[in-house]
């Protein structure tokens, strides 16, 4: 669950796709292999802005970091990089030998027990080389609730038997003592996540979960070698001593630059997903301006951008020039959307009333918002709480239609009047001052004004917006804000309601730091969420989440605005840049460099 990460594809489409994929054996033409024979060698140069908040896979939760750790910390399952979004949705075994199914005995009949076999050829970059074991994966999962730098995701404690108790106990351990944490980990078991032998993991869930492979495939749950017990998780010492089981290993780490070089123990033949053409990957940080990074890519002093999209102002120029090095990658999610503070006492509690929120659904010109991002080629209006490509999406569902998605202020005004507010409302609207948000805020303000709503805008930093303004229930109840325009992206694509709809609309989770910012709560929705999470098949999941989406939109809990594409640019010499939408990054392990 993350702020402004990204989204997932229609479940109905997934089944079809899997068949299509099996038929063509992966990488279709749209998946985009470049011309020429891949060559080994060279240094891939990446230009980035900020130092990642975390390096340790146990706590790294930003998109680009999770994508990065795929190169040196393998997970049991993962997705394939591709420039065809649909190809990036299915799960593939990575450290696992195969996908567990009921047919192959990997999943028990009740859907609650998973037996996962590790594949051959997995080795740590230790000297001498040591095989990666099931116990290493158990250690990896245990580390997610270390008290020093825990994972921010709730999935493991929610789902895996015994994880909750294990984590509660772990929380009491001295977070400043690596030894105390190591001892706790080695001395306590998670009843639902155990190593049966060196190559077999047995997982017991509290209830069935159709999305479990995605959850256990997140980088949080990557294997951890026993060496990690010597360091405080994610500490500076840890960052200097990472251990790799992927094609690359981190040979140098500083706040300004990190370097990956080949892992001599990596077995290319057994890794079906990676090629590792380049010898070395250098990530240069501290380049804060997207314009500066773009310039480097155009000049060829860097090959790819680490964490920044193409500057919005450069998009029309590159697109109109039909520059082949410029791409718009699918990255579907509802981002941004308008959230209502349903708890606000302002305007006699107007936003707590469904009819008022429904009126506002009609007010916004979503095409104008899309234009703030470079027009409909870059961003498209979204009509419900689920963006295309995410489970529960229904292309025909448009509960609040307006002409060309451009808004209907007259209808808003009339409905607002009918709801008992003929003189309009006055709404407090904190907005972020970074990126395109000031423009979005002014568009929204003008639209609402046309509906008779006075909007009081107050500027806010991105950090404060997500860290304090929206996530402090006392402030919400005191009416310190009425509407806001945050963004949200699920952690994975595919069956991702648990990561997309649930965090935003499960009212039982409301509290400090809840992403259900406006305190929306509907018992019927909560009940449906529980059912949807347990859906066993994609079709069931699709139906269940589509129902959640419908209820939420009937309640007008949010005004969905747009879904954005992720814009990328690359140097002239990079080839086979294949995208990982969930991580908003290219797969460095597939890229090769053309010689001049």
């Amino acid at each position, binding site marked *: 669950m993350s702020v402004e990460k990204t989204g997932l594809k229609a479940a109905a489409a997934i089944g079809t796709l899997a068949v299509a994929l099996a038929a063509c054996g992966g990488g279709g033409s749209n998946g985009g292999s470049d011309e020429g024979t891949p060559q080994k060698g060279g240094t891939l140069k990446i230009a980035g802005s900020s130092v990642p908040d975390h390096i340790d896979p146990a706590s790294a939760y930003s998109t680009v970091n999770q994508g990065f750790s795929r190169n040196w910390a393998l997970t049991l399952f993962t997705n394939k990089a591709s420039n065809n979004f649909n190809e990036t949705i299915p799960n593939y075994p990575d450290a696992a030998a195969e996908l567990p199914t009921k047919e192959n005995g990997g999943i028990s009949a009740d859907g609650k027990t998973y037996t996962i076999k590790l594949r051959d050829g997995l080795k740590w970059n230790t000297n001498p080389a040591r095989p990666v074991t099931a116990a290493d994966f158990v250690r990896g999962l245990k580390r997610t609730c270390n008290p020093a730098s825990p994972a921010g995701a709730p999935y493991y404690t929610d789902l895996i038997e015994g994880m909750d108790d294990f984590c509660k106990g772990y929380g009491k351990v001295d977070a400043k003592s690596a030894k105390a944490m190591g001892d706790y980990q080695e001395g306590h078991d998670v009843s639902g996540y155990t190593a049966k032998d060196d190559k077999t993991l047995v997982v017991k869930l509290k209830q069935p979960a159709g999305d479990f492979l995605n959850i256990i495939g997140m980088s949080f749950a990557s294997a951890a070698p026993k060496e990690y017990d010597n360091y405080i998780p994610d500490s500076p010492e840890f960052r200097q001593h990472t251990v790799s089981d992927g094609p690359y290993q981190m040979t140098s780490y500083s706040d300004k630059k990190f370097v990956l070089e080949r892992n001599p123990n990596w077995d290319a033949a057994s890794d079906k997903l990676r090629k590792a053409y380049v010898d070395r990957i250098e990530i240069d940080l501290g380049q804060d301006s997207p314009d500066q990074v773009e310039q480097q890519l155009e000049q060829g002093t860097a090959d790819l951008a680490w964490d920044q999209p193409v500057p919005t102002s450069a*998009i*029309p120029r590159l697109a109109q020039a039909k520059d082949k090095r410029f791409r718009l990658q699918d990255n579907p999610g509802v981002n941004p959307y308008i959230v209502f503070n349903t708890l606000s006492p302002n305007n006699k509690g107007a936003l707590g009333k469904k009819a008022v929120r429904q009126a506002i659904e009609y007010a916004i010109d979503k095409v*104008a918002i899309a234009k*703030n991002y*470079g027009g409909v080629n870059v961003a498209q209006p979204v009509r419900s709480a689920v963006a295309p490509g995410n489970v529960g999406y229904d292309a025909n569902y448009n509960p609040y239609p307006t002409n060309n998605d451009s808004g209907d202020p007259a209808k808003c005004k009339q409905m607002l009047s009918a709801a008992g507010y003929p003189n309009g409302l006055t709404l407090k609207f904190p907005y972020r001052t970074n990126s395109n948000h*000031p423009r979005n805020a002014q*568009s929204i303000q003008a639209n609402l004004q046309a509906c008779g709503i006075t909007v009081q*805008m107050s500027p806010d930093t991105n950090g404060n917006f997500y860290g304090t303004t929206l996530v402090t229930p006392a402030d919400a109840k005191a009416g310190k804000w009425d509407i806001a325009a945050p963004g949200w992206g699920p952690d994975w694509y595919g069956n991702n309601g648990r990561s997309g709809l649930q965090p935003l609309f499960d009212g039982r989770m409301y509290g400090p730091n809840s992403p259900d910012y406006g305190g929306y709560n509907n018992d019927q929705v909560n009940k449906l969420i529980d059912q949807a999470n347990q859906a066993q098949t994609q079709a069931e999941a699709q139906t269940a989440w589509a129902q959640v989406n419908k209820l939420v939109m009937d309640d007008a809990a949010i005004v969905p605005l747009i879904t954005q594409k992720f814009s990328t640019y690359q140097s002239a010499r990079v080839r086979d840049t294949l995208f990982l939408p969930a991580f908003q990054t290219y797969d460095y392990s597939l890229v090769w460099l053309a010689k001049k």
Partner: protein
Amino acid sequence: MSLTELAADAVPADAEPSGRKIQGRSPFRLAMSRLMHDKMAVASIVVLVLIILFAIGAPLLASWTGHPYGAQYPDIARDSWGLPKGPSKQFWLGADPLGRDVLVRAAYGARISLFVGIAATVLATLIGVVIGVLAGYIGGAVDAILARFMDVVLSFPYLLVAIVIATTFRPHSTWLSLLLTITVIAIFSFAAMARIVRGQVISLKEKEFIEAARSLGAGRMRIMFVDILPNLVAPVTVLSSLLVPTSIVFEATLSFLGVGIQPPMPSWGSMLNDADYRSSLWLLFVPGGLLLLTTLAFNLLGDGIRDAFDPRSERLITRK
């Protein structure tokens, strides 16, 4: 000296027997006459009058064009990439990135610039004169404290502190942001004024007419504000006329950095901030040109006023 007095002065009090009239001309009239002979100053006045008319006429422009300053026309004023369209029949000076009329916004921006420039100057002048007179006249510990206070204010890296103040008290409405901007500018402008006034007062208070007033039993307040203050009109007028353009630029700087006037109220500074110069040059030239013209006019006028009041002083720009 008021205008009515000037009018009275213009009427010859008495006719000389020879038939030639000799008019007694006050220093103010002499200064005004010198100012009116200064071509640059007159040109500046003309420019400023035009800009003031532009600002006053903002609502008229909005109704003529049919484009209120906050109204957005994303469908007709932005292309499919979301880029603003340039000058056209409907949008004479082009559109801004949100599809708003640049002409209308520039006119409303003129209101903000002039209002902030003048209001901040008036506020700074008031504070500056009061503190300067108190420090200069009372002297002693009061002077020491006030003078050091002025030094402290003058030694601040004003832009940094202004940004800190503006971001700390994030205003929740555009009007509050206007008020805050004016206050911030005044805080950083009064000290220069106060310092000069203090110097003037220190020399004035030793003059005979003050001693005369004191010997007649005038109190401190009366001497400060009735006897001394009128003698400060010339330097204060000159200083404030130069403070106006400084304040306008200060406001534009704060708004450009996003900590001044808050959207959707337009200000030349925030209009410049919004501009993507590479694709839309008019977004640079309209507010930038107006800002340049206005500050240049105020500066030249201020220069002219100084020349007129004190013909021996040096000019900002030498003219033949």
